[in-house]
């Protein structure tokens, strides 16, 4: 057990920092520090291509597919320096961190050649279509249908909460390919081009006034018969494997953003005198402790990456960060006082900390609500009996 980095790792860190800082202080200074997910999409697409041109777009992938075969530690270092340089949230997070690893794990050589180069080059932005109006926490209740007709999958149904679909080129979905099947059986994992008449997207306005999420409608939408990962009916297994990639090294970059948010709360408290309030001091200290422990929890998780035993740090990570950030939003408002409830903007748009207060209500819902996380921890981690399932 050691926390320091080797001289080689520090050299790699310097290389990352040099390049990233050069970009963020040069050609891409206009998108430096962007925290919203929907601002300046065209420039963020340029940025994806720039990352790719210098082989930084997917460093954990094999070299053959545009990556660097980077070790976990190198990926951690890159993620940290990426966030430290103020580089914006990745427009193609879903492509690089979720679709790519899943295609690498389940795809044929032809499929890898079809999808991976676009993700690596930044030309193909991907989004995820799992949830449906009737399938939220109960993901296996998916109703969207797909049937094979003349070498094409023809899809009908609706997805919801598809982040960034309005900027994406591809969407992967799980759809019911065996008529009459229920639950986890009879689902398939399909990859669908978005630019076609059968796919339409409607942004959903959120409580903070932004629209990052969408409804995505499929009306006789099509993809090739070969645009399926795993065998027909094997979609649930592929989807679960994909979700396991979610807690990858990108969590470390996410934490750098959390650091910026906590620092903004600290700066606000110092500026308006809230830092002298003994109760707020306790809460700020708790937030600081929580953030530090998140970092070391993530490092434990990554250090355990190739062990098979159930990893408590990984199992508890989602609820930990989501709850921390929700609490930080509430703390931010208590630090700001009533001044936090008004904005200088013309439209309904709030500055970072007030927006955090609103946006963070989503953190404890998406990607598995806190309640679902507790079930998972209790059942998978502690071995307590599973929830009874009603008739489908």
């Amino acid at each position: 057990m050691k926390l320091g980095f080797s001289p080689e790792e520090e050299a790699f860190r310097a290389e990352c920092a040099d390049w990233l800082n050069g970009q963020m202080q040069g050609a891409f200074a206009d998108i430096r520090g962007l925290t919203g997910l929907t601002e300046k999409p065209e420039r963020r697409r340029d940025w994806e291509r720039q990352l790719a041109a210098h082989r930084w777009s997917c460093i954990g992938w094999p070299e053959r597919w545009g990556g660097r075969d980077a070790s976990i530690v190198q990926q951690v270092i890159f993620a940290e320096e990426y966030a430290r340089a103020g580089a914006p949230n990745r427009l193609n997070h879903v492509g690089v961190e979720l679709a790519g690893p899943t295609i690498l794990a389940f795809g044929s050589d032809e499929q890898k050649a079809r999808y991976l180069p676009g993700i690596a080059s930044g030309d193909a932005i991907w989004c995820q279509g799992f949830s449906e109006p009737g399938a939220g926490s109960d993901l296996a209740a998916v109703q969207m249908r797909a049937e094979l007709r003349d070498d094409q999958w023809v899809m009908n149904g609706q997805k919801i909460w598809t982040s960034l679909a309005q900027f994406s080129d591809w969407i992967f979905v799980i759809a019911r390919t065996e008529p009459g099947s229920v639950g986890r059986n009879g689902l398939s994992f399909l990859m669908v081009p978005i630019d076609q008449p059968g796919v339409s997207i409607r942004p959903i306005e959120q409580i903070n006034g932004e629209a990052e999420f969408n409804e995505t409608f499929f009306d006789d939408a099509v993809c090739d018969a070969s645009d399926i990962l795993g065998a027909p009916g094997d979609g649930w297994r592929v989807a679960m494997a994909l979700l396991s990639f979610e807690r990858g090294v990108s969590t470390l970059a996410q934490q750098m953003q959390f650091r910026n948010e906590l620092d903004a709360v600290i700066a606000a408290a110092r500026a308006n005198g809230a830092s002298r309030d003994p109760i707020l001091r306790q809460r700020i200290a708790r937030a600081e402790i929580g953030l530090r422990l998140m970092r070391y929890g993530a490092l434990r998780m990554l250090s355990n990456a190739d062990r098979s035993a159930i990893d408590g740090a990984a199992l508890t990570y989602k609820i930990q960060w989501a709850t921390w950030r929700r609490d930080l939003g509430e703390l931010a408002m208590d630090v700001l006082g009533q001044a936090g409830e008004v904005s200088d903007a013309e439209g309904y748009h709030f500055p970072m900390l007030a927006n955090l207060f609103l946006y963070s209500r989503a953190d404890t819902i998406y990607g598995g609500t806190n309640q679902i996380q507790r079930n998972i921890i209790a059942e998978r981690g502690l071995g307590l009996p599973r929830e009874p399932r009603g008739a489908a």
Partner: protein
Amino acid sequence: MDFALSDEQRMIADTAQAFFAEQATSARTRAAMADAGIDRALWTAFCQELGFAGVFVPEERGGVGLGMIEFACVAEAAGSQVAALPLLGGAMTIAALVESDTAYGDERLAALISGEAIAAAAADETITISGDGRLSGDAILVAHGAIADSLLLLCRGEAWLVPADAPGVRVTRRTTMDQTRPLAEVGFDNAQAVPLGAQAARAAMATGLLCLAAEALGGAQAARDRTVDFALERKQFGRPIGSFQAYKHRLADRTVEIEQARSAVYWAACAIDSGSAEAEIALPAAKSFCADAFFRTAADMIQLHGGIGFTWEHDAHLFFKRARSIQTLLGTGDFHREAIATRILDRAA
């Protein structure tokens, strides 16, 4: 960067866990509780058979030559059985003596590492100390103070060692809520102490905070695990009570805290071992966080066991009382969080 125990560290942790699970039984701990709050046979075996009292002491000073990560593994194991041992005062005093590089230190170090001598330690800011090292002050509460041969006192950034039988030292045993670590009232009346210095005080405090945090981690995890076992066994309404979400979610919340506590303990241990300035945040963070996590888990252990958890016969109260004492020892959670707040809020802009 590798934030997982090495194979050797894993082995030490397993050895310590097996040792305490086998020897620090409920029956033996209860016998110690009814007596002076120490299982002497257990302490002797811990010091002499395992050699773990000196686990972090350099080999040339008579120890095992390992570090704080290994010590944390050992303290965690002791905590998981709520073992009645003078581990806290011993480790703090040993850490202080390692910093005092004298014949005086060597002799006492050897006696403490072998378990022949027992030390207790406390931090207190109210004692007055004369220029020639004479202590005076009202009674302070010292864990395992009544069975100690020597007392380590941390006061205003300095460490002082006093033989318990020195003239002017008054020791009175008190009936203590946590009988596995009974408190004694210690008063000083112009008692001659030996100065060990500021470096010794820092080392002792760091070791003490880590010891308490690691004990709390072990205690919390054991309290949680025992409650899970009960939840699977006990049936009401025709099903195991662990199948109810109200029950599962409470245990899940404690599990989230225990995982954070684990990160906290080993972060702090690494920070001490690497001499990092981060220790100044890591130690108060670990101590305050782990103590609270342990308390909530032990409190839930009682609640989730129902009536049986409220009985003297059941071990739940051992965990509950130990958790409460860890919350207080060496500074409350509020005290340590305020220390962190001072660092992050009051530094020059």
